[in-house]
């Protein structure tokens, strides 16, 4: 009996040893994806004044969950990450300029035709809580979990509105989007080369484009457009923002 276990173990070892060298197995390599925040094409700087319709806005916080990141080959996804948390305005940043966030993921080498990005936390993960994840996991972050909503805050965009452009803020611009109803996935077509030494993939979010669609701005004079929480009105606003993430995102390599 003991002998047969040895043979079994030897067989498993042999098969495992062969896996990496078989013909047809594609080697994996590092893929660097850098996320960058902008407003109207300009670097995002905390508390800097930006034009918004005919008034000013500023921002002091921007972070987001990005999920189900996959490289595409003619629409067929190769998933390279379940979930990541990108924080453009960390408390320990050296300056007020939003930082670039670079992820280093692993993907099979090759030529791809696009990338898919999930915006927020997909429903299967959104049903979980920070306690379900080990420390350090993106979903273990207690600040990004909304106890009242029993779900994650998909992104935080926080700033202020200066309606009369006198330099004194007139209200907050606080968008905390969440709930399964507003989770979005978007694909972007572009040639992506994955091999050692290949350039990074650059994903840029332009916050201005979150708030304007077909030339129409989200009216921040309306106080109910200043903030999202968890009532029906807020889910409607959050849906608009999450829809706008597609035109607000540009990808290049």
């Amino acid at each position, binding site marked *: 009996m003991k002998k047969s276990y040895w043979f079994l173990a030897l067989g498993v070892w042999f098969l495992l040893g062969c896996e990496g060298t078989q013909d047809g197995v594609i080697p994996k390599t590092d893929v660097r994806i850098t996320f960058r925040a902008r407003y109207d094409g300009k670097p995002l700087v*905390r*508390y800097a004044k930006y034009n918004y319709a005919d008034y000013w806005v500023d921002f*002091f916080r921007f972070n987001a969950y990005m999920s189900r990141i996959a490289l595409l080959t003619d629409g067929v996804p190769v998933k390279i990450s379940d979930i990541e948390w990108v924080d453009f305005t960390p*408390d*320990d*940043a*050296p*300056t*007020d300029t939003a930082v670039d966030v670079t992820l280093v993921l692993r993907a099979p080498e090759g030529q791809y035709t696009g990338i898919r990005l999930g915006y927020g936390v997909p429903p299967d993960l959104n049903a979980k*809580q*920070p*306690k*379900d*994840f*080990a*420390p*350090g996991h993106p979903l*273990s972050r*207690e*600040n990004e*979990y*909304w*106890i*009242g909503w029993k779900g994650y805050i998909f992104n935080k965009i*926080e*700033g*202020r509105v200066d*309606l*009369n452009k006198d330099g*004194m*803020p*007139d*209200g*907050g*611009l*606080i968008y*905390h989007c969440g709930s399964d109803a507003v989770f979005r996935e978007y694909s972007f077509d572009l040639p992506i080369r994955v091999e050692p030494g290949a350039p990074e993939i650059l994903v840029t979010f332009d916050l201005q484009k979150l708030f304007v669609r077909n030339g129409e701005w989200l009216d921040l004079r309306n*106080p109910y457009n*200043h*903030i999202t*929480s*968890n*009532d029906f009105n807020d889910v409607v606003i959050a849906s608009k923002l999450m829809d706008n993430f597609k035109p607000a995102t540009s990808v290049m390599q």
Partner: protein
Amino acid sequence: MNRSLAQWVFLGLALLWGVLMWQGCQKEPPEPAAAGDLVHIPYTPKPYTVIKPAHFPEVPVPPDNPLTVDGVQLGRRLFYDPILSIDSTQSCASCHLPHLSFTDGLPVSVGVDGIAGRRSSMSLLNIAYATNGLFWDGRVRTLEEQALLPVEDPIELHNTWPEVVSRLRRHPTYPELFRKAFGIRDRKEISKELAAKAIAQFERILISSGTSKFDRFLQGDLDALDDEELDGKLMYFEEGAAVGLPDAQCFHCHGGFTLSGNQYFNNGLDKAASLDDFADKGRGAVNGRRSDNGKFRTPTLRNIALTAPYMHDGRFQTLEEVLDHYSSHGKSSPNKDPLIDQIGFPIPGTQPLQYTGLSPYHKRAIIKFLHALTDTAFVNNPDIQNPFR
């Protein structure tokens, strides 16, 4: 009065003897030369299992300082031992008392020399989860780094680490405890880094019991909160609009299961015409960003009813004063958090839009909810009390 030579010699010798005796009394006995003097003591580290509520995440523990039973016990002893202070009168626990949820009940803490510090003692409840900086201004990242600072702060324990380490090496008990905690071979290996690691281990077990009214509610006991406390909870978590309650905006800053958030905000305590006008620049003084002047780390609101007075400088004596502050939207400054202005119901027709603040009932309900966060099982936990009593 002529003295003989012998008398002078005798007097001189007596004086010399006296001086030598006096010097001898002043000098500490030398540290014993003791290569490997502790190896006869067994070193059998056992992992310490932190008891935490089921709805809390795993406690973050750095890989280079895993919790062990002996490490936690050593840390507990060091935490409560005045040996750390220059005159052996104060310990960490002097400013972090268990029955006050590890605060000291003072507006600002007072050190061994009777000098008042600038800031109020922060609660250590669930401090293990604070991974975005410690102290009010986030000037250190880890509990291990934090534990090093008060010992040498002239307005806290006002000692030096070489002196503390020397005391620990000479101590009749500590060398054995360090051996059991860290496997050192001899007492000369006792260091400030190991002392800080032990204290950090103890601090990481200061976790909620999960038995507060709020925790029982979260775990499905819907009767744990009465109607007023429930109203307070709805306003706290911005869930009350559907039942006609205003938004108190609390959870945006005091969020997560620790109700801390561990982020930095200007909550409108002081009027400032420019970012340079804050008397205490807080976070901005640490990271050099003007935009962070006047910001402080949000403390946990768990056990908040036990941790008066409030704010980084202890300016508010009661929770009523705190709620009055927020309800009045605080004082203006360039980087005041905008949510402070949005507490209450929006007032239609105002431009810019203004908010009502909170009614006496709303404030009372929120304060009742804050009392429902009190965790008496935690503060009475025998495992975290002073081991010298």
